[in-house]
């Protein structure tokens, strides 16, 4: 029998003969790898999901035209071209007009886009052509009838569609579809609100590129939203990170403890090898190879299970699909193998100082 065949025989046979303890060792690695995979996958994915939740606060960027002008007609196209699928923009135009003889801010809006960007607006029914949406305070002021609006001598009469409640300045305004607004006042949009769903540094980059695409406008982040978002997000992220680290560390310790004692159990095998003439290096290499095999098997199984666990947690908490993060796999694989080798080599180092005879006599 050649040397290498002998090596593999000695390496593989114990795994089969001692099925019980091999299974326990693999199980320990699987548990740790599952925990690590699930936590790392979630941690990567959760950040994107949480950022999505913060978009419920509405726009985080605003583009306004410079004094007494409207934005160029193609401004919205230019903005749309720079936004991703999960991001949205909505144009608004504002004038101060007279409604039934009283000064009021009248706004033009794009119904579909506004609904998307301002989910917190409580609206009875959105205005269609020829109708207007009244802020709750404006509605109290003007009653239920048709409204006659006047701007720079141009008059228009609109029917009321519904009432808008936001608890903020919008409550004092009257909104109508942007096409009606432009047809009546002759003015286009002067404000574009943008809900950008990206990391803070990417938001700053977007501000810069929008500013260079629209030289005639101010582009600025709405600090109230961006700063608070960064703060809350940072805290949530750190809490998660700490919890994830704690879980990974404790599962690693658990693996280390289990494997170390299972290797110690086999001190007799080690002593026999040495008594038969194996060098301590060869014996250690044998145990290290065994550990690598167990570690790799555990990592693969654990990675699959971990993806399943992450998927389950995503379904439960986010009602969304958490996709496998493949770049987690090398980390888990290397971590598991390193852990198992460490668990095998620590007892080996202790044992190699002992005479085989002492171990075999059972003292």
């Amino acid at each position, binding site marked *: 029998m050649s040397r290498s065949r002998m090596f593999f025989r000695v390496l593989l046979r114990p795994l089969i003969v001692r099925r019980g303890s091999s299974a326990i060792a693999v199980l*320990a690695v699987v*548990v740790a790898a599952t*925990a690590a995979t*699930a*936590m790392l996958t979630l941690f990567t994915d*959760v950040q994107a*999901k*949480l950022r999505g939740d*913060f978009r*419920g*606060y*509405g726009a985080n960027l605003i583009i306004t035209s410079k004094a007494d002008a409207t934005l160029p007609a193609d401004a919205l196209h230019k903005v749309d071209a720079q936004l991703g699928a999960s991001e949205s923009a909505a144009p608004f135009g*504002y004038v*101060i007009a007279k409604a039934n003889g*009283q000064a*009021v*801010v009248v706004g033009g809006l794009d119904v579909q886009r506004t609904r998307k960007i*301002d989910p*917190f607006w409580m609206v009875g029914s959105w205005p269609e052509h020829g109708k207007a949406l009244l802020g709750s*305070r*404006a509605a109290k*002021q003007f009653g239920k009838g048709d409204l006659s609006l006047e701007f720079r001598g141009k008059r228009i009469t609109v029917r009321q569609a519904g009432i808008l*409640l*936001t*608890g*903020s*300045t919008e*409550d*004092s*305004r009257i909104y109508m579809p942007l096409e009606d607004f432009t047809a009546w006042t002759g003015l286009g949009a002067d*404000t574009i609100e943008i809900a950008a769903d990206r990391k803070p540094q990417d938001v700053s980059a977007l501000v810069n590129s929008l500013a260079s695409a629209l030289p005639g406008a101010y582009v600025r982040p*709405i*600090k*109230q939203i*961006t*700063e*608070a*978002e960064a*703060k*809350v997000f940072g*805290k*949530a992220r*750190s*809490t*998660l990170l*700490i*919890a994830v680290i*704690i*879980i990974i560390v*404790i*599962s690693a*310790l*658990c693996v280390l*403890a*289990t494997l170390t*004692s299972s290797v110690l159990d086999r001190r*007799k095998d080690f002593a026999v090898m040495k008594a038969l003439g194996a060098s301590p290096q060869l014996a250690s290499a044998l145990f290290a190879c065994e550990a690598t095999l167990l570690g790799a098997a555990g990592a693969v199984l654990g990675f699959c299970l971990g993806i399943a*666990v992450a998927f389950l947690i995503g379904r*439960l*908490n986010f009602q969304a699909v958490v996709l496998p993060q493949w770049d987690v796999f090398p980390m888990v694989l290397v971590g598991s193998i390193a852990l198992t080798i460490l668990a095998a080599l620590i007892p080996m180092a202790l044992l190699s100082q002992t005479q085989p005879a002492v171990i075999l006599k059972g003292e």
Partner: protein
Amino acid sequence: MAAVAITLGVAVATATIAIATDIGDKVSEELRSFGANISVVPQEDTLDLNVGGVNIKPASEGAYLNEAELPKIKGIFWRNNIRGFAPFLSTSVQARSGAESRNVELIGTYFAKQLRYGKDEFVEGVTKTSPWWKVQGEWPADDSQRVLVGARLAQGLNVKPGDALTVAGRQLTVAGVLRTGAGEEDAVVGPLTLAQDIAGKPGVVRSILVSAVTKPEDAFARTDPRTLKGPAYDRWYCSPYALSIAHQIEEVIPNAHAEQIRRVAQNEGKVLNRIKGLMLLITIAALCAAALAVSAAMATAIMERRTEVGLMKAMGADNSSVAALFMTEAGVLATIGGVVGFALGGVLAAQIGRSIFNSSISLQPVLFPIVLAVAFLVTYGGSIASIRRAVRLDPAHVLRGSQ
């Protein structure tokens, strides 16, 4: 080693449970950095003429709230949930510096004003309600003739902190340049008393913004309090919903209409529940990991003592006394590990709380029995299989050293 594993496991379990139970409060507190969630305006007010954050309604028009009533906000049922409030009164003025002159809005407010209600003293103002306001220079005192100038206006007027600024014919000093990312950047922001003086409206404010820690809105929160009777009304009144806090503010400030600011208030519940749910699931995962760690440690600890079991049995001990021995040992380990782990976990949680939220996470004493029960459950759960294997060992085989 088993004792160490149990202690460690219990410590991790305690810390994550403590964090999970407290995370809701902590995140609610952090969510206040989104600013005020309740606005208070006079009931009979005329409409705001506010475009792009700049108010152009004349100060002489519309209704007002009485400034003297403000401290009463700290006297409502949910006063401890009020994290801050700031009054506002704005008026159009002419601001002049050297040759440059602009018609701008002067916003009067509190920066950090010392107020009293009954025996309580507290500090209120925009520094509390709007943490995103950034001042280059310094904040003016609330009784000074010093003002903040919005960043864009400061650029237009070419003024910097320390410069003189003439506002409505008065000689004022620029204390700092204000960046807010909104309409205030085109305005002058000064102490409330100064704005009242200039507008000729002593002792009044136009609106109040209130920042309160609230409970996420549910269907019950949206019911009209006027339709509720008896216990249902009490329950609504005594829940810290934004709507019920607004209702209580209307009760103490005459002629006020308080409304939740939906942009801020509506999303809080969603973000809060999301983070809470996530922590709950992570806690369960941490508990499972801790349980497995303890089980593994117990199992190895018992298997290492095979020869001891063999010897005991060879000398005449029966299965039940061997089992009883191990069970008692596991019990002692669980108790010690539980108590030490609980203390360690408390320290860990407090440390995490301080490093992330700058406030300690308090360990509820009520958690102790729960944690101890978990320690017992996990220790016995982990050792039962190993104890059964130990009890079944054949003493002859064990003592000879074969399997």
